[in-house]
């Protein structure tokens, strides 16, 4: 299947360092795609070229097989957008905003917006200017989802949302993808997208550093396991067990690092009498941070 979003050698240069360089990326239909990077890495620049707010210096942005600039109106008919710096008409109420954008989109009914507003427990009859930041963010999400677009482009959509609302958003994003529609989601923290995204890309200094399935990232994740044995195992009992490294011992308590598949470790462990077991799945953040540091060891975050 051809990608819903295709960036081909996308380059956008500004005065000095900002912008993006030769970005190649394909987002598939029906996936939630996490687009990650530090602030200033080029996420918003990329997204703004997708919306035709800015134009590539070179390269191409294709959405639904259409040119994001030349066929911008047709692209945006099937797209919903929450900008990173969301600003709405303060004098309108959310209901009026939905009705305005609904009219611009030629929607016959606002039932979609009403359903979403209910789901997010959004007050729709107070002027937007009087709403809290988190509530305004909900307004942004509702206007992006209300026409059931084939592609959602969301620039840090969950910033300012409380965890409960974030969960509602995650559910919505999953449902959207399950219905075959596509969600393109940017964030500067992996933890925000790791539970909802199928794949993630990382941009660093305007370049694509990595694209991978969240699952396979997880497989590379380091799990820290603390085992309390009935009696301490022999010194080298776990040497040579696949993916396992013994980290430290305090009497009968041994700490292991397991990278990826845990099966071999569990089978070896079963040969011993285990009193207690405690495991912390390393946050994907840790893997990311290790990738984040450039070859020169400098932290980009």
């Amino acid at each position, binding site marked *: 299947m051809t990608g819903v979003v295709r960036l081909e050698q996308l380059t956008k240069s500004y005065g000095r360092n900002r912008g993006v360089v030769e970005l190649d990326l394909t987002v598939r239909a029906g996936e939630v795609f996490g687009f990650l990077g530090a602030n200033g890495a080029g996420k918003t620049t990329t997204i703004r070229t997708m919306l035709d707010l*800015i134009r590539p210096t070179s390269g191409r942005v294709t959405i639904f097989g259409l040119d994001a600039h030349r066929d911008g109106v047709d692209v945006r008919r099937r797209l919903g957008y929450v900008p990173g*710096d969301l600003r709405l008409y303060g*004098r309108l109420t959310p209901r009026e905003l939905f009705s305005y954008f609904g009219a*611009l989109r030629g929607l016959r009914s606002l039932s979609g917006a009403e359903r979403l507003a209910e789901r997010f427990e959004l007050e729709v009859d107070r002027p937007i200017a009087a709403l809290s930041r988190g509530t305004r963010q909900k307004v942004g999400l509702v206007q992006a989802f209300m026409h059931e677009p084939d592609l959602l482009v969301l620039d840090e959509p969950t910033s300012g949302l409380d965890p409960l609302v974030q969960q509602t958003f995650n559910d919505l994003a999953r449902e959207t993808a399950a219905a075959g529609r596509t969600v393109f989601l940017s964030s500067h923290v992996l933890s925000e997208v790791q539970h909802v995204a199928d794949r993630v890309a990382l941009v660093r200094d305007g370049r694509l550093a990595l694209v991978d399935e969240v699952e396979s990232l997880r497989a590379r994740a380091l799990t820290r396991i603390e085992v309390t044995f009935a009696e301490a195992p022999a010194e080298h009992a776990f040497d040579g067990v696949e993916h396992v490294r013994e980290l430290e011992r305090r009497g009968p308590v041994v700490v292991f690092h397991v990278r990826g598949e845990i099966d071999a470790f569990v089978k070896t462990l079963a040969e011993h009498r285990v009193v207690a077991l405690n495991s912390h799945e390393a946050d994907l953040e840790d893997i990311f941070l290790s990738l984040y540091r450039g070859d020169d060891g400098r932290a980009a975050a």
Partner: protein
Amino acid sequence: MLLRNVLLKTLRDSSRAVIWWSLGLIGLVALMVSVYPSVHGNAALDKLVHDYPQALKGFVAFGGELDYTSGAGYLGSELFALMVPLLLLVAAIGAGARALAGEEEAGTLDVLLANPVSRRRVAAEKLAALFLELFALGAVLFLALVVGCRAAGLGVSAAHLAAATVSAVVLAAGFGAIALLLGAVTGKRARAVAGAAALAVAGYVLNGLASLVGALEPLQKLSPFYHYAASDPLRHGLGLPHIAVLVGIAAVASVLGPFAFERRELVA
């Protein structure tokens, strides 16, 4: 429902401002015509005005000869030489600058343009809203003038009042469209206002000085203010070539505005 499209949304946003501007225009007309009876036929005043230095006459006359004691001359000097175009220009330039640059600065352009509307269309609808607002202000001004002139016995025909009003509205429409164009190019409301206002002041001064300084006279026709007044609308109605120049200015700016907006980089 006033939220059907960009045009109606813009009119809805500016409705309050239009009402205030209308009240201002009505008040101005009421004040000026109410003074007229004490000026009319005042020979001393007539002589005083007649002896005005030439430099001043260039600025206070509205087409034709300076003549304070006839209805047309009085209206021309008191309203159309400065106050009416000033008010309409301030309203037009403000609205033109707000149209695109204002929305860009407010940050709402991002979500607006995420809708399936082309930028050209957004700019065109904003221009249409601007012209409709000016048309409404012109209609209010015209009605106030008709009523006022009848009440105070100024003896200027409705057709000539309409001619002067149309000339002022079209002049203002041109500068409003220029402000919108400058806003589309720069994305900054203050720059759009400053640029359009500077052009207006330059045109006004050029027109006033040209009747005084011989060397400037060939340049006078470059000033929109010259074409605004040249046909002496309160006495002779509209002169086609002059109004055509004013319409032309508005038309060129109206074509360039959406074009420039289409090409802009809307950097967050």
